[in-house]
């Protein structure tokens, strides 16, 4: 938060890769601007009206060669930059399996975050250094954007869609969290901080933070309270898909397509059950839209995912 020169605020693995690409492009750009403005300046002086400079015409064949030459050079240069940018993009976008999962709910105008152990935070996120973090994000109202400049990372948080952001903090310190998508009156006040701590400090922080039940336990309670098991249970009278081990697996749908059961799929299935009907089942499930807050929904999804984790056969 205190240091703001870009070289000092590389806060994540992605950040240094982005910076390298940025400075390379900056170098190329400076060279091109110097070339173009230099040529304009030199020509302006040398060929000012009435100067004695040689103005005999070049053969047309040379003109054509020059044109083809700089077109190809430009194309080659741009393709190289594109190739580099793509390789960076696909290397740091991969999702780690051993990461810390944090659930994020954005609303006008605050960030609500919850740790796997149930610790809740508002406008602040405490994470240990050098451990991959995976944010699972939803919005309660409009589009927001989770932006940590020091990590060079940003991801829109969209109502009705679960988005993710993966990063590995590499430096202990406090970094700004900002909302980058205009979201109404207090958009510029929708800020917070990311506190990156040593693993020891982090476990101390976890111990001293008031934790309710962990997410999975909360989700199990809600699952029971809403009577979901009445249908989604092998012994139930109404036939509904078995949810054990569903997370992360391909699900065949009634319309013949297959979807991956990710967070967005689970969320949609709870709020808009008729959107994607599982093959072989009747569309009888009622929508739970309006009956669950986003935070509650997160816990149910966490519970459903835990069902997948415990089932060794399907993972």
């Amino acid at each position, binding site marked *: 938060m205190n240091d*703001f*020169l870009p070289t000092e605020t590389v806060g994540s693995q*992605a950040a240094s*890769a982005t910076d390298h*690409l*940025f400075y390379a*492009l900056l170098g190329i*750009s400076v060279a*091109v*601007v110097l070339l*173009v*403005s230099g*040529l*304009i300046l030199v*020509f*302006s002086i040398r*060929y*000012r*009206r009435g100067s004695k400079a040689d*103005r*005999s*015409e070049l053969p*047309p064949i040379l003109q054509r060669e020059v*044109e083809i030459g700089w077109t190809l050079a*430009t194309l080659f240069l*741009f393709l190289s*930059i*594109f190739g*580099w*940018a793509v390789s960076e*993009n*696909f290397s*740091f*976008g991969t999702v780690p399996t051993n990461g810390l999962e944090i659930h994020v709910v954005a609303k006008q105008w605050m960030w609500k975050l919850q740790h796997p152990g149930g610790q809740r935070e508002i406008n602040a996120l405490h994470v240990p250094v050098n451990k991959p973090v995976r944010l699972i994000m939803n919005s309660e109202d*409009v*589009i927001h954007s989770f*932006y940590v*400049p*020091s990590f*060079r*990372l*940003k991801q*829109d948080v*969209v*109502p*009705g*869609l679960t*988005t993710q952001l993966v990063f590995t903090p590499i430096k202990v310190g406090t970094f700004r969290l*900002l909302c*980058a*998508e*205009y979201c*109404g*009156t207090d*958009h*510029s*006040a929708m800020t917070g901080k990311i506190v990156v701590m040593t693993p020891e400090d982090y476990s101390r922080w976890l111990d001293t933070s008031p934790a309710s039940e962990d997410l999975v336990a909360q989700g199990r309670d809600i699952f029971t309270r809403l009577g979901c098991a009445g249908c989604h249970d092998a012994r139930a009278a109404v036939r509904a898909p078995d949810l054990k081990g569903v997370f992360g697996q391909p699900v065949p749908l009634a319309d013949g397509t297959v979807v991956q059961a990710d967070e967005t799929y689970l969320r949609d299935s709870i*709020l808009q059950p008729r*959107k994607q009907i599982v093959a072989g089942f009747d569309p009888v499930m009622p929508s739970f839209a*309006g009956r669950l807050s986003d935070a509650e929904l997160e816990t149910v999804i966490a519970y459903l995912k835990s069902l997948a984790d415990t089932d060794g056969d399907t993972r």
Partner: protein
Amino acid sequence: MSDATLDIEGLHDAGPDYLRAGHSVLSWLGAIDHKRIAILYAASTTFFFFVGGMAATMIRAELVAPQGHFFTNDTYNKLFTLHGIVMVWFFLVPVIPTTLGNFLLPLMLGARDLAFPRLNLFSWYLNIAGGALTIAAILFGGVATGWTFYEPFTSFYANGYVTLALMGVFVVGFSTIATALNFIVTIHTLRAPGLTWMRLPLFVWSLYATSLIMILATPVLAITLLLVAAERVFDVAVFDPTRGGDPILFQHLFWFYSHPAVYIMILPGMGVVTEIITCFARRRVFGYATMVMALLAIAVIGFFVWGHHMFVSGQSSYSNLIFSFLSFMVAVPSAIKVFNWTATLYRGQITFEASMLYALGFVGLFTMGGLTGLFLASVPIDVHVTDTYFVVAHFHYIMVGGMVSAFFGGLHFWWPKITGRLYSENWARTAAMLMFLGFNLTFFPQYIMGYLGMPRRYHTYPPEFQVYHVMSSLGAVVLAVAYLLPLFYLTASLFRGRIAGANPWDSTGLEWTTTSPPPEHNFHTTPRITRGPYGYHPPGEAARV
């Protein structure tokens, strides 16, 4: 072009010039002469430019201090929304086509008027009607959606006269469509004998490419705005995620228009600059055919790059890949144009009139805007800098550094054609240089603070960014002075300026072969064209004075 030694004296018998052809208010408000309609547009776009400019001034004044001084969050949000809506739809999109384009297109084609003169007047009234709706929305209390009208914010979370503003933009879109249709038909059907496609000045080509984009993209905007209005007013679920709608769909539709709209704004500027540089370098344009191809390539590829506005929106990383690739590709023809303008100077006979200073400034600023476009086309960098001041700086380099410089260049270049008078060259050069300096002082710091993480549309900001904001606001003062100066010396020229004569710049353009200001029907006899444009020297020979 046609013979520059056309009998200009003889034209004085062709009746009064278009300015003296009628003096009543009705002769202006009911004019169907393209030249008079161009003047009407000049008046309305100038008005909107200063409305949008006032909002910008207030924004820059507020941002001098990290916590602001003058406005509430809501007022600030309304100011940047107003600035965006007015500048994009009521100034940048229409200004060059409807003022310079309207005035010059028939003159450059050797035609008496546009193909549909009444449609031309009607599109001005549509422009005014759209403007009136938007101004009404502002006067009733303003709109705080941002010019992008993102969903579901606009339908369900924004207060104020949003629907009125949407309708304003909807209506002005039809004005654009009508103008584009008019231009396309005119270029196809009203070229003078001998004026083949490859003899057209590049300004005409740029208007043609622009009109194609306008006519294909603007209806998409109209549909999108109608959907938003239907959702907001009649509660028809379209983008509402709670009822199965998709807010990202809105972004696809919006940018499918709004990215091509960037080329709607910049292509006419490229055309103007080509006319100016060739004239004051006394050179044929380097690579005419390539310049035409580049304009068309930009117009076509420009339709397939919209997704680069959405790299962090949640669209798939494979979409990002493809849109990133296409965004790099659209930069190639833009780069070629920069090289060709530069090469046109080579072995020229260069002089530095005010319009030439604007044109050279355009090349430099457009280059910087274009290069930073490559940063934004690279996904990892865009993830960091999208929705920051880096993007703000980038598109202002293209829109203001590029487009507005080109407009002022064109205004100065054709001012004697339009009014018959010469302005003070010294004042004009001063304004041109002030504009270049003020522009860079305003917007270059925004690149830096953007990369450091300053988000756009922030009323209050972390104090470490203050130094950049102060620089930017100082630059805005210089820029404001530079924009006000022409109001004075151009107005003064109308009363005290030297009589320009038909062709004060000794240009070879067809528009200069008639008197300045031109007679009502442009040409006494229909010109016959026997050569290509920019005949400043015989092909294969050196540039001569």
